[in-house]
């Protein structure tokens, strides 16, 4: 049996422990990048500067080999993806012409406008940050929770939320 008093072992443990802290931080960062969610708005419209026009006809857009979406000129579709790196394939419904592009999405943007014309034309960057104009906030609820054990109308210790029926209605 060895003890922790030995300075050699102590030094080794210090190294292992600091390495572990690094692993912890690294793992957090890794899960952050791997799990980072993005809403891709797949946009098939003419570019505003007119340099490129919408891809004509129907196209199939497929992200990371998942089920393809049909997109027509003027369409905007939304697709949620996780992680930074993705392969986007655009296939012409008519011609069967298939273009695959690898994209790396920026970490800090939740919503990105992905332009199909640019994608087809290969003009980088394919995407630009997108800020929705007016997101209707979900209905507002009141403030804090119900553990106010002193309020006269003390509350039921509701069971697990979904299964529990509300207290009997008046």
């Amino acid at each position, binding site marked *: *049996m*060895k*003890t*922790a008093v030995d300075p050699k072992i102590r030094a*080794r*443990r210090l190294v*292992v*422990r600091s390495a*572990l802290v690094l692993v912890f931080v690294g793992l957090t960062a890794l899960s952050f990048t791997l799990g980072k969610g993005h809403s891709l708005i797949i946009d098939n419209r003419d570019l505003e500067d007119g340099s490129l026009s919408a891809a004509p006809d129907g196209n199939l857009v497929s992200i990371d080999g998942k089920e393809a979406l049909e997109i027509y000129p003027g369409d905007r579709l939304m697709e949620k993806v996780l992680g930074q790196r993705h392969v986007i394939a655009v296939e012409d419904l008519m011609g069967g012409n298939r273009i695959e592009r690898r994209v790396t999405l920026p970490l800090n943007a939740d919503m990105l406008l992905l332009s199909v014309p640019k994608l087809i034309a290969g003009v980088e960057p394919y995407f630009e940050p997108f800020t929705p104009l007016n997101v209707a906030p979900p209905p507002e609820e009141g403030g804090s929770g119900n553990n106010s054990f002193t309020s006269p109308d003390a509350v039921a210790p509701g069971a697990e939320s979904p299964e529990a029926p509300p207290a009997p209605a008046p």
Partner: protein
Amino acid sequence: MGQQSPLLSLEHVSKEFYGNVVLHDVCFDLKPGEILGLVGENGAGKTTLMRILFGMPVIAETGGYKGRVCIDGTEVNFGSPFDALDAGIGMVHQEFSLIPGFTTTENIVLNRESMKANFLNEVFGDRMSVLDRPDMKKRAQGAIERLGVNLDPDMLISEMPVGHKQFTEIAREINREKTRLLVLDEPTAVLTETEAEVLLKALRNLAKQGIAIIFISHRLHEVIEVADRIVVLRDGLAVKDTPVAGVSVRDIASWMVGRSIATERLDSGEKREFGEEILSVERLWVDMPGETVRNVNFSVRKGEILGFGGLAGQGKLGIPNGIMGLFPAGGKIALHGKDVPLNEPRKALEMGMAFVSEDRRGVGLLLDESLEWNIAFTAMQIQGKYLRPLIGNFFRIRDEGGMRKLTEEYIGVLDIKCTSAAQKAKELSGGNQQKVCLAKAFAVKPDLLFVSEPTRGIDVGAKKLVLDTLHKYNREYGTTIVMVSSELEELRSICDRIAIVDEGRIAGILPPHADLAEFGLLMSGEKAPAAEEPNRA
């Protein structure tokens, strides 16, 4: 063996607690493989000596000690028991320090388990190692074999007979590789005679292997049987340090209790006459943990002061506790010829008995309440005193004025040092607390008063006052007193008869002026032909 240098030597060790000298200039040596029998009455300083040896924090907290403790000739000063363990000193305590739900093996290697390292040690330290159970068992068996006894390494402690627990505890100490000195404090107290035999054999076994042993016991014949040398402590002095050869039990007994100063009787030769029998006790047994009473018969006559002496743990404390109903008891007790129901403290009190408990702080006092409460409570509850009617006699509340008057009266009579009658009991000194306990008992004006260890833990002046008070109540009010004490001198100074309790029975009843050696023999469980037969019908 004889030529070796001493393993342990104590040089002029002295210790005092708040001016109270408990050890004075104690010296002795111990060689490897030697068994030293350490004997002495309760309070002779054995425990304090062992505490010093073990570096118990209580010693340092109370001002440390004087003199030197040397191991292998170099002075040591342990800061904690763990330092002592590291230095190779093992201690087997009187009460078991074992985990009942663990097996023999687990207890023997407790906190010294064999471990197998793994990667997690690097992260979370040694405690993440996996236990190596086969090796633990091997080590445990090794220790058991060294001891030379028969123990199942996989048995749960809770399922063991007492003797095996004791062996497990010793095996645990010798399992430490370094253990060279083993201290056993009353190891045979809980054992049957056959178990004790086995234990003594095991100890000699260990000694042959070079382990030095300090054997503390009150069973003197065992000490003579097993020890090479005997050290007798009396009042903090090592009065005798002698090889065991040629020493008799009677010798040791007289060394133990012998006094240089003759006892002063409070009554100088007055002629004592007693009334009729007030209390008779037949076949009393009491289940008081640590103080079991097995079969006790005695009777007390009116106006008498009967003393109960004996060593700790022999059951003398169980007698008053059982009669007063505080612990489960059986047998036949009659007060004034009327049967006293057992296990009902209230009945005992109502019949005119009162009790001053040895456990002053635990049972005797309401520490958080005022002196008034402490003194008047029992009288109020049992006799309905100190209550005043509010609405007729139907609804009565405390008579605070009456309580205060009573308390102030006793503060005066017993010279209780306090700021006022409203002071909290916990703020008083031990001696004054004891006086409060006495006042509580006196307040119910008992016919028969039990006093248990009335002078334990109080200073000399207070001791004298307490004894004088008891004496005064006995003489002036005719209160019959049964007094239980570990201090023989105290009993001899005040009692009319002294019963010595040993192993839950009365070993004998002696007059106070009997030869000291007689008392010593009775306490050590040896037959004393001169003693008065206990069972006088």
